[in-house]
């Protein structure tokens, strides 16, 4: 694998036929082991990685909290309910529409929203949705981006022309506007493609929208790497031995570009979570009654004076999640290829 040792950087900002990111290494240790060694030297980043894992674990525990602590669901309205707080009976939602603030108890720990729903429960379920969308969208983007980049870069010619123009079209739209356009239209009518039918309120809609939007951001640098790799001696040697294109892509080229996908993945997750929050805030992402941090901020903004926690808490969760992913992702990038300058810009 020494052919890949001196590859220059990959930079998403400057789309070009730039060669590839590498899993650099020497001295006998495998590239992955070297990367792990470098990663261990970044305790702060590792800590943020652990924070992210803790967040995932907490979100996964949402049903337990809802059932055994809060005794409600994320959808249940408690408009006319009353609860005991400090020995006093108080309305969950006041006659003037002001919801109860944090009680710091099991029920309505972080207060209620305007519909009398438990904010803490919705925060956890919203986090599950945000993480599910972020991780799923990033995974789909990675698969589609790698596939597109590999096919376009290896086959060149009309395959490259067609795929690159599609990428150009997607890239030409501002991310938010494309997200709103796709999200709004699909959430109204759902998605029907042959036997596949997805209802407008399904989480699959924002997952699909976000995944598609980010494909060019991965596909283009992958294509650049593949264009360079396909001319390398080891690829030519494999071709000369009669290896077919699909097998060649799979066994010779993919292993050399997979690290770029890995470098991108945490950043894609972070960006997907941010985009989901923005789209949901604008009504084009997660649809009611499903909670998400974006929809919770949207609801909370209207109560920023009387119930500031409604907007601040989900906002803080987004910041913590994205920050942890970005710091950890940066460290992963440095570990896999210290010279890479990977960025996702909108």
């Amino acid at each position, binding site marked *: 694998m020494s052919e890949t040792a001196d590859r220059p950087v990959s930079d998403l900002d400057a789309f070009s036929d730039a060669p590839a990111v590498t899993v650099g290494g020497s001295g006998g240790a495998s590239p992955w082991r070297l990367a792990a060694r470098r990663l261990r030297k970044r305790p702060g980043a590792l800590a943020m990685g652990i924070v992210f894992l803790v967040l995932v674990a907490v979100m996964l525990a949402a049903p337990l909290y809802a059932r055994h602590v809060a005794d409600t669901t994320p*959808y249940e309205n408690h408009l*006319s309910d009353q609860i005991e707080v400090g020995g006093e009976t108080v309305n969950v939602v006041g006659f003037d529409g002001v919801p109860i603030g944090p009680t710091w108890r099991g029920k309505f720990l972080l207060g209620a929203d305007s519909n*009398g729903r438990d904010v803490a429960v919705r925060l956890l379920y919203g986090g599950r949705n945000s993480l599910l969308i972020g991780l799923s969208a990033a995974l789909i983007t990675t698969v589609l981006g790698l596939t597109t980049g590999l096919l376009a870069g290896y086959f060149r010619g009309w395959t490259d022309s067609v795929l690159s123009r599609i990428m150009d079209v997607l890239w030409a739209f501002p991310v938010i506007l494309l997200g709103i356009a796709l999200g709004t239209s699909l959430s109204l009518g759902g998605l029907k493609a042959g036997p596949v039918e997805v209802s407008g309120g399904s989480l699959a809609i924002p997952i699909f929208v976000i995944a598609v939007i980010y494909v060019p951001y991965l596909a283009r640098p992958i294509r650049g790497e593949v264009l360079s790799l396909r001319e390398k001696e080891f690829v030519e040697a494999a071709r000369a031995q009669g290896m077919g294109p699909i097998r060649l892509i799979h066994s010779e080229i993919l292993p050399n570009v997979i690290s770029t996908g890995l470098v991108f993945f945490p950043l894609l997750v972070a960006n997907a979570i941010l985009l989901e929050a923005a789209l949901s805030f604008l*009504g084009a992402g997660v*649809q009611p009654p499903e909670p998400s941090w974006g929809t919770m901020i949207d609801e909370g*903004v209207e109560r920023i004076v009387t119930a500031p926690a409604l907007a601040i808490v989900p906002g803080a969760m987004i910041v913590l999640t994205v920050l942890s992913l970005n710091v950890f992702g940066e460290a992963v990038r440095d570990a896999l290829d210290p010279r890479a300058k990977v960025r996702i810009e909108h």
Partner: protein
Amino acid sequence: MTRTLRNSVAARIAALILIVLGLGSVVVACGSDDSSDSGSSSGGESGGSITISQTSQPDFLDPALSYTVNGWEPMWLVYTPLLTYPHVEGTEGGELIPGLAENLPVVSNGGKTYKLQLRNGLKYSDGQPVVASDFAHTIKRVLNLESGGSFFYENIVGAEEYLKAGNPNGDIKGIKTDDDTGEITIDLVDADASFSNILAMNFAGLVPGDTPFKNMTEDPPPGVGPYVITKSVPNREFVMEKSPNFASFDIPDIPTGHVDMITTKIIKNANQQAQDVLANKLDYMQDPPPADLKPTVKEQAGDRYRETTTGSTYYFFMNTRVAPFDKAKVREAVNYGIDKPGLARIFAGELAPGCSFLPPGMPGYNEAFDTTDCPYGDPSQPPDLDKAKQLLKEAGEVGTKLTVWGNNDDPTDKVTEAYADMLNQMGFDATPKIVDGGVYFQTIGNQSTKAQTGFANWFQDFPHPLNFSFLVDGDSIQPTNNQNFGNVDNAELNETINQLTLEPELASVADQWEAWDEALVSPPNSYIAPYGHRKIATFTSDRIDFDAVVFHPLYLNDYSSFQLK
């Protein structure tokens, strides 16, 4: 007229930008520097100037076209129709009086011919005389400009032919006018007991005969009224000044106004408006203060803030052509299971829980039916969920999937989510479907959508039950743009509407309307699920004599009653 507060994507984008810039809370806390001197004026009971605000530009500042509260509230004082309403509160404010006509119309020919006499000596605000043929021109503009109000006048003989001919200056056969005598005769295709109310609508506010057949928002035409629009800069401001000659006409029951000048500024941020009214930098805000600021407003300015119930009804439609709402028991169950006081909380208290389809102040409205005599229990009390569950079980519809339609206007989205949750508590498997407010009513009004149930509301255009009955009239069902969302089609109720349409004396048939309303809502029909009537806020600066402000049942806050202390 459907009226809701919009929370559009654009507004959300603006809010998002504010959040990103970290300015969200700053905006809440700060007033505008621009408006710091906007409220200055001289004092006194009459005279002086005030500055008020609207959140969005009125749809039109042209009486032929405007069909929103934003437009009607100011233009009522600029364009007086032949008939109008007294500037007083309560039921009296909904009683027809002569406006530019000498008297109420003489109705003949089985309710199909209306004769009116124009007052003598009337002049528009620009000094040109008012003549009878101006009425015909006014109606032609409404029809020709494809106004939202044009269908009200399509019952005039020759109106359809006029529209088909496509000649703006052509004649409408059913309108005969005599400029010398001031006589106006209107012939209708079908008798319509509400036509006098239609003549009193803002659309029929007289404009000169040479007013162009185009939207005149940027240069509103002269009218006859206590005020004249002297400046209009769309999306920024418009100015109304006292009409120079209106007082000399001495038209009974139409006041001449107090303040000399009213400047209406368009300020997108409702928080800013509320802060400015609190700080006396603005004298009045047309939209209610945001729910978030209401506690502050009530605490700091409770003596200049009040809420008044309007002639409106908020209800859930249940599509009788689609399962499970083709079963009366299911509709009855829903009526039992709705938490009306809970929904009132979503409206921040700006909803009077109720059970009547006809709104307060409307002839035929029965206050007892709307409160204590409601067949589903007192609307101000918690719902009878057990009864709802039992009825649903009897109907065999437990677990039935429902799609609950609503739009993203505030607070309709929250109401829709709450309604879906209430249906789930009854035993359905309901999911809300929120669509953009701009396409909502067209979407659910399209039969191909097969909308099962969802949000609906109606504000009166005029105080006559016919303005509500068409929403549940089987004869009004259409394949598209249908406003009878539940496809209510009951032969008996339809027949009652048809009979009462012919009755010119509304007072004499008010009890029949009352019975019709009860039959519509009560078991075994239970066609719709009304849950309340919207309240509208009056919030003024300290400079305004708050006690003198008149809240009109139709045109809401009456600017001609605004006077400086």
